[in-house]
């Protein structure tokens, strides 16, 4: 026998992923479903010599799709026809969860029910007559506690050892059964009969579309007959009958505790959803996530950076000193530099993924959406997209990954397009350089204005994009607020490690390749003065295009390109292009390899310590500290810019194409089309805004 295809289906937040985690562990692979940005989790495992292919289908409440995610689940079940369905249900909320079950049972696919969060079910005082429950539903049911791995063995035993029968579908009232029989002949070939009949009666558009004209005509007649018989739509009748069936089953099997206790969820919601406290606590939580992520990862990022540039690069240089100079530069600056850039993001993403997973798995993220919904709707985004936007102020890269937490693909894409307008920390050195020269008296205000401009531009672009490109009704906001649950470290770790792996593999390769390409732009022909490199020549040629923004020379235009390596590189690039770059720090102290290695190890220990101090030492975050240095670059730009053109250039740098790593992240998450869209958007928008700034400034007499 070949691989057994096992699909995990259930409502959102019932612990499907945790259950797959418990079975597959690190074998879990995360990718996207073809053509969409919906996360696909799958794993192949061997149990007792049998190969199982496990796939986690997006959480759904019914098999009539409302979102892309729900459509994936339905299509998978109908077209791929898994060998076994594991229907994961939240035992503490059986009535609502079994609504989906009734539809699964009609598919004619062998099914097992996993009664998850069984521990909570018991401690809340519920009890279930399992034998009777299995008998009435016609399927096997296994109590599980996915987070602790309980019941997993039994579940696997069932799947691998027993012949799981095809369940018998629920029976409904005689009246409804009459109509089911009546539409059955019109079910298209290859579709499960009973399931499809009921979907027809539910007026499921996707099914109705598949009927031939003749069948559609006949079905319409039947639906009209049903409506006049019951006095309400088929959609409504079927839903009531399904819930009626469930109530019948639960009445005979479930004993509910008498007198509902006030749960932890109620207590926490009294604070988190409070009319007065809701928003302040949300802001506080987001601030803490922001601070802990960036301040905590900071020292580790510096260490990684040092490890690559001072240690790896140094010793590789030493080893290849016999090669031609250009090749050395390509290897050290291009390739090692590129890999280094990717690796420096590992600590940052590690921290971010940890806190995001914590917010998500604990159930708080749904509350954030609830609290912020009204405000974010102004720019046509759901409340949750506030989180990636804020993360964007620290760094755009994790912000792109944070869009994963949004429910709909439309929202994810729109948010990802707006994130690059959030002024990240790497743009600060640019502001520091220019404000120190041109706005000495109002440095803080000018820097602050950059943040405000970024937000205003994002909001405006958001409204425009929504109007012209993301048309159609914004998705309805019918969302469950799941009970708060404490996530296990194992779950958090799986989530983090799987995502980090994906970043290194998919984004990492693209980023490194692009970095090598950029190296070539800046260094070919090798050894030529900046003006004669590919970059210099191209920049000189297109510089006139930038006149309306107030930039009258080619150097600042050229600096934008290395600026895509990382925004702060603009500063160094300007220095080099103006020919005033600091001399390379030659004459390093001689040290042996082992000495250096020891230093790196000690340095790592110190970095870990610093990380703790940075996170918990003070309440303030260091992300927005502006360090300005006076240097030869300052002199060069004081001649090349006026205050107005400097301001315009700062705006240009703020809104200009995000760094390669951000683009790599967009590519990894959303593919080529959206990456190109983002590049287009972040060239047109900054050009227009900078021109407005410059021309507007001139009109009111500023220079």
């Amino acid at each position, binding site marked *: 026998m070949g691989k057994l295809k096992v699909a995990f289906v259930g409502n959102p937040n019932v612990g499907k992923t945790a259950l797959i985690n418990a079975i597959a562990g690190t074998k879990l692979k995360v990718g996207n479903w073809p053509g969409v940005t919906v996360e696909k989790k799958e794993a192949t495992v061997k149990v007792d010599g049998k190969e199982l292919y496990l796939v986690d289908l997006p959480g759904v409440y019914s098999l009539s799709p409302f979102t892309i995610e729900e459509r994936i689940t339905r299509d998978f079940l109908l077209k791929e026809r898994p060998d076994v369905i594991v229907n994961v249900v939240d035992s503490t909320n059986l009535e609502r969860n079994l609504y989906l079950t009734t539809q699964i049972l009609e598919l004619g696919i062998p099914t097992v029910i996993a009664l998850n969060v069984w521990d909570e079910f018991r401690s809340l005082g519920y009890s279930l007559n399992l034998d009777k429950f299995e008998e009435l539903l016609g399927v096997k049911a296994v109590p599980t506690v996915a987070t602790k791995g309980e019941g997993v063995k039994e579940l696997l035993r069932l799947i691998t050892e027993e012949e799981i029968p095809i369940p018998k579908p629920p029976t409904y009232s005689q009246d409804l059964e009459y109509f089911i029989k009546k539409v059955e002949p019109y079910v298209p070939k290859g579709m499960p009969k009973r399931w499809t009949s009921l979907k027809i009666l539910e007026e499921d558009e996707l099914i109705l579309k598949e009927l031939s004209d003749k069948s559609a005509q006949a079905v319409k007649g039947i639906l009209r007959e049903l409506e006049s018989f019951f006095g309400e739509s088929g959609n409504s009748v079927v839903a009531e009958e399904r819930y009626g069936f469930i109530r019948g089953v639960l009445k005979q099997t479930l004993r509910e505790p008498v007198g509902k206790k006030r749960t932890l*969820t109620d207590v926490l919601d009294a604070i988190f959803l409070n009319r007065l406290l809701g928003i302040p606590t949300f802001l506080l939580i987001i601030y803490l996530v922001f601070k802990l992520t960036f301040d905590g990862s900071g020292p580790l990022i510096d260490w990684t950076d040092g490890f690559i540039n001072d240690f790896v690069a140094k010793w590789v240089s030493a080893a290849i000193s016999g090669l031609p100079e250009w090749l050395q530069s390509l290897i050290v600056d291009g390739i090692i530099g590129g890999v280094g850039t990717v690796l420096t993001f590992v600590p940052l993403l590690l921290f971010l993924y940890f806190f995001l997973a914590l917010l998500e798995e604990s159930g708080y993220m749904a509350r954030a959406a609830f609290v912020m919904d009204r405000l974010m709707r102004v720019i046509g985004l759901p409340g949750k997209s506030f989180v990636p936007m804020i993360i964007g102020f620290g760094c755009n890269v994790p912000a792109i990954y944070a869009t994963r937490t949004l429910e709909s693909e439309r929202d994810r894409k729109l948010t990802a397009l707006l994130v690059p307008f959030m002024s990240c920390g790497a743009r600060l050195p640019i502001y520091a350089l220019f404000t120190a020269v041109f706005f000495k008296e109002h440095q803080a205000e000018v820097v602050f204005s950059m943040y405000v401009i970024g937000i205003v531009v994002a909001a405006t672009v958001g409204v425009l994009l929504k109007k012209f490109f993301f048309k159609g009704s914004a998705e309805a906001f019918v*969302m469950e607020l799941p009970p708060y649950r404490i996530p296990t470290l194992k779950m958090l770790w799986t989530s983090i490690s799987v995502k980090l792996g994906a970043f290194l593999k998919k984004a990492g390769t693209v980023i490194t390749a692009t970095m090598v390409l950029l190296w070539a732009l800046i260094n070919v022909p090798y050894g030529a003065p900046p003006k004669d490199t590919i970059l210099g020549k191209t920049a000189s040629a297109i510089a006139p295009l930038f006149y309306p923004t107030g930039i009258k020379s080619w150097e600042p235009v050229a600096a934008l390109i290395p600026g895509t390596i990382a925004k702060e590189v603009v500063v160094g690039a300007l220095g080099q292009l103006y020919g005033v770059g600091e001399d390379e720090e030659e004459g390093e102290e001689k040290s042996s390899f082992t000495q250096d290695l020891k230093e790196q190890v000690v340095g790592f220990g110190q970095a870990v310590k610093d990380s703790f101090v940075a996170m918990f030492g003070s309440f303030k975050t260091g992300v927005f500290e502006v360090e300005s240095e006076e240097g030869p670059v300052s002199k060069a730009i004081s001649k090349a810019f006026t205050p107005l053109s400097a301001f315009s250039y700062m705006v240009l740098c703020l809104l200009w194409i995000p760094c390669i790593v951000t683009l790599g992240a967009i590519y990894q998450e959303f593919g080529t089309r959206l990456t190109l869209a983002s590049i287009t958007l972040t060239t047109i928008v900054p050009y227009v805004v900078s021109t407005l700034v410059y021309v507007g400034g001139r009109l009111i007499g500023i220079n």
Partner: protein
Amino acid sequence: MKLSELKVGQRAKVVRVKSNPELSRKLRAMGLIKGEVITVEKVAPLGDPIEIRVKGTKLSLRKKEAENVEVEVI
């Protein structure tokens, strides 16, 4: 009366869900069917959305969507 018009703490019985078939199917899947008793639990800090309890679930929906649910206060 519409669900969107209820005040925090009020209990009501669902009379009818009336909107486009997609949304009504969604609302019904979440438990908003005829005769179901629901409670309005909270209103978001900025006045919208609202949170209701239905079939042991906390459900949040915008007022615009809640307008589609006709209820009867009990």
